[in-house]
């Protein structure tokens, strides 16, 4: 158990040196000169001229250079050092002097799309996917982006625009009896995996690159690096040891590009392990501003919804286009609404890049949409539970994307959540929230099974980050093969031996890999029992200009309920009870499923009450785990409970994120039931106290 796990940070390659990164202190600036004259002889510096011939990388838009020039955020990497010890490398990095010519910067997504805002990537948007050969210097979409259809707007900071058009939202709002129009905000958050980012790189004598790195995306990483370095994908090997947590932080290309280049220049293996503070300038969660307009008929039937979203992706697109897309369609919500219009912009700002984060866009739009639902219920004079029930999607209904919903369980989830807090008896101090979240679509998963003298070895690229995918694969394989779980060996994902898998994200592995495994076992059993191979693909995708198509072949469905009390003199919120009910299908690994639910809820609690990456003039002001609080044991609600809504004959269902996104809105709605209207996350004591001040005196009383 645990003590023996070897993470990427524990990798030790023969003769390895250690990396330290030279980062920009300015949020936007041209690199004028780099002075390395003070460096001692026993170190290697990676400088702009060393990477001048390389291309760019990025999982959805190739907008990132190995060494940045200009630096586009305070913390952008402009040079790198390798030396024999981590301390020597850091010391050397401190001796490098970089002269910058500062450029105007912008730190807010709404300001960043205003006329005259400084542009981070002036060359973005010049080329669209499929537009043929790109002019030199243009930013081109990555292959992976095909499923998203990246739509940069030329001459702006918008790296992607996603629209969903279903019916006529404006006409619908005009016709509605009651309309709510409110703007909501969510903060940036830091994944704060216990293990920091760690990568070790080694070049072989014949020019092949080997990477040992904490990653959820070994194949995406391999493809991205192959493009950047101009080598064949087969010449790059990515091995992914278990991660000490990730939550989206260790996706796509993080340290790997710079470490690989440094190792090549140093002529020896190089390893990098980030300092804790560097995590805050490596990847955070997208903050968003979301304006919701939603209208209903007097009887509570939803008529129309408009969502305008400004999604701050930081200095590089990363997967911001994908987040804006998922945030956009998830914002339509799990409801039948005849007229929906979503306009979601992924926007560059001079802040550290934002990327995948457990909940992937859904949390942001669930916060906005589900808070607006309670406001609408109040205007209608209707119970928030009743308003939701009346409009929830059911089997066979058409979602705003045009796809027909199947295996729908929203109502059961909502009812279970409401019952857990006895909502129908007394809704005072209580709040509800429902979530719909898609799974990566399209995607492909493959797995190989091989008989060994003692059992079977199962090779796949599903990466272990604590979510228990290895146990899940082992248990499913043992059940299918009729042996003990202990007889199943699941090695670390290795792109040289594991078959292709899209990536370990969006709570897709139990479902996708589980089905691929069934195929593989069938293959093994019909072909002599020695080897088997299985592959599963789910097809689909949305048109980025209309939001029509197949958003997801498999829907994550859940609801949350919260009961709170408030110290109205200080604004402190006590969560008396937090409950999540999620659709689980057939449960493969009960302990693992429970851990995913509990962990998601606790992370959601942090998002709701504690977590915000703060910045001033482009500098992060709370880049440590004392100024940035994550939930501790003592922060748990007085009661934390959950339901796994199961069907023995159903397919297994991914559960990694479902219980996170509905939590903040459930707590926000519980506060709203006390007359405290919060529109911005996190709901700090200070903000709650402002809401107390803003509440009409008649509404103020004993709360909770």
């Amino acid at each position, binding site marked *: 158990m645990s003590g023996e796990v070897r993470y990427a940070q524990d990798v030790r390659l023969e003769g390895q040196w250690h990396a330290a990164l030279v980062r920009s202190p300015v949020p936007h600036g041209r690199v004028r000169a780099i002075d390395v004259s003070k460096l001692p002889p026993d170190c290697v510096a990676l400088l702009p001229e060393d990477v001048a011939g390389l291309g760019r990388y990025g999982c959805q838009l190739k907008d990132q250079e190995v060494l940045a020039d200009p630096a586009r955020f305070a913390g952008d990497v402009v040079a790198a050092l390798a030396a024999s*010890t981590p*301390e*020597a490398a850091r*010391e050397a990095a401190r001796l490098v002097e970089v002269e910058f010519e500062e450029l105007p910067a912008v730190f807010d997504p709404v300001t960043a799309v205003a006329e005259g805002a400084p542009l981070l990537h002036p060359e973005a948007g010049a080329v669209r996917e499929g537009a043929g050969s790109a002019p030199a210097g243009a930013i081109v979409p990555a292959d992976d982006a095909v499923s998203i259809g990246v739509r940069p707007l030329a001459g702006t900071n918008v790296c992607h625009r996603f629209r969903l058009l279903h019916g006529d939202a404006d006409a619908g709002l005009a016709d509605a009896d009651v309309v709510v129009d409110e703007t909501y905000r969510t903060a940036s958050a830091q994944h704060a995996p216990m293990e920091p980012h760690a990568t070790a790189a080694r070049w072989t004598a014949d020019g092949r690159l080997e990477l040992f790195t904490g990653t959820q995306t070994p194949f995406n990483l391999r493809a991205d690096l192959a493009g950047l370095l101009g080598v064949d994908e087969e010449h790059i090997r990515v091995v992914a040891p278990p991660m000490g947590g990730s939550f989206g932080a260790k996706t796509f290309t993080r340290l790997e590009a710079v470490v690989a280049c440094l190792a090549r220049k140093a002529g020896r293996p190089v390893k990098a392990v980030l300092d804790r503070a560097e995590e805050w300038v490596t990847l955070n969660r997208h903050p968003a501003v979301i304006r919701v307009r939603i209208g209903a008929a007097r009887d509570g039937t939803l008529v129309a919804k408009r969502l305008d979203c400004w999604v701050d992706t930081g200095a590089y697109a990363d997967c911001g286009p994908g987040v804006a897309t998922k945030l956009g369609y998830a914002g339509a919500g799990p409801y039948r609404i005849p007229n929906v219009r979503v306009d979601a912009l992924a926007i560059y700002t001079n802040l550290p890049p934002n990327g995948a984060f457990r909940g992937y866009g859904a949390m942001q739009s669930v916060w906005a949409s589900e808070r607006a639902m309670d406001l609408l219920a109040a205007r209608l004079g209707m119970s928030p539970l009743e308003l939701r029930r009346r409009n929830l999607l059911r089997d066979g209904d058409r979602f705003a994307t045009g796809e027909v919903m199947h295996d729908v369980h929203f109502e059961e989830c909502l009812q279970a959540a409401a019952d857990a807090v006895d909502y129908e008896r007394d809704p005072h101090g209580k709040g509800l929230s429902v979530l719909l979240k898609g799974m990566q679509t399209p995607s492909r998963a493959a797995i190989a099974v091989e008989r060994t003298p003692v059992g079977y070895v199962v090779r796949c690229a599903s990466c272990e980050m604590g979510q228990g995918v290895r146990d899940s694969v082992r248990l499913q394989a043992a059940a299918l093969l009729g042996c003990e779980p202990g007889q199943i060996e699941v090695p670390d994902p290795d792109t040289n031996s594991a078959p292709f898998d899209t990536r370990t994200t969006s709570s897709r592995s139990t479902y996708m890999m589980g089905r691929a495994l069934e195929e593989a076992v069938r293959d093994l059993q019909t072909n002599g029992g020695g080897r088997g191979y299985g592959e599963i693909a789910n097809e689909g995708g949305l048109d980025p200009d209309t939001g029509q198509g197949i958003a997801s072949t498999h829907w994550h469905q859940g609801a949350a309920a919260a009961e709170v009390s408030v110290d109205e*003199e*200080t604004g*402190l919120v006590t969560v008396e009870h937090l409950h999540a009910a999620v659709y689980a299908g057939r449960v493969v690994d009960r302990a693992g499923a429970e851990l995913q639910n509990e962990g998601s809820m606790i992370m959601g609690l942090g998002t709701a*009450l*504690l977590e915000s990456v*703060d910045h001033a003039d482009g500098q992060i*002001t*709370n880049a*440590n785990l*004392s*100024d*940035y*609080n*994550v*939930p*501790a*044991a*003592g*922060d748990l609600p007085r009661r934390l409970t959950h339901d796994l809504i199961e069907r023995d004959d159903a397919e297994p269902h991914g559960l990694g994120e479902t219980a996170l996104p509905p939590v903040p809105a459930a707590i926000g709605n519980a506060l709203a039931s006390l007359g405290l209207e919060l529109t911005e996350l996190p709901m*700090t*004591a*200070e903000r709650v*106290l402002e809401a107390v001040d803003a509440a009409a005196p008649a509404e103020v009383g004993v709360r909770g």
Partner: protein
Amino acid sequence: MADGRVDWLAPEALDEALALRAERGAEATVLAGGTFLGILMNERLLEPAALLSLGKVGGLEGIAVVDGELRLGAMTTHRAVERAPAVREGWPVLARAFSLVASPRVRNQATVGGVLADADYASDPPAVLEALGARVVLRSVRGEREVPVRELVVGHYETSIADDELLVEVRVPPCPARAVYRKFRSRSSEDRPCVGVAAVNGDRALRVVVGAVSDTPRELPEACALGVEAAAEIGHRYAGEIEPISDSRGSAAYRRRVIAVEVRRAVEALA
């Protein structure tokens, strides 16, 4: 983290430590438990050429009651204070304040002398020690002096300890029956205080000390003179006169609101 190369001075006797202190002065940073210094060094905010470690010095650890006064050796850990029967019985408010610092793990390492000599504003014990009228014993090769805790912390992470002095002991007068410490955390249960209020109603007078809101703990004798019945008014006066800092645990404006509430609640608890 730093490479750890320093001149490591680890005397085993107090005389030896004082001699080294006199000789090396500010150039050798005094190391007690190391929880605060450890952070500064890890974050490279401090890169001392020499460390004068008190860990091996005999006689600096211990808890005793002498003539009704509590004596805490400078190297006594927070954990030892909170667990000691003598403190729990005679100075329960002090045991409680020490028990609220960080985590058990940090309290196993952090010392009584260290928490005062660091003059860290966001800490619990200084406000309580000040409210109880505690004094520290500062010793040097020149001799010994006693300084009230109130005069020890003089500014932002600044004390009145001279470069050749060591804080060797803390002396706490008998604890009045009515004494409370309220630690207000605005965020996590593991957070440092946003506002800390120590209130003591002794034979002579009410004392209220507010910590974690400015460079030094703050006490307003005129407000306290109103007496415990004027709890709300005392709260207002503290809120009005203190210029609170803004940090990740709360803005100045928010802290003002909380000072008024928490001072009132602390004083009410004494009535």
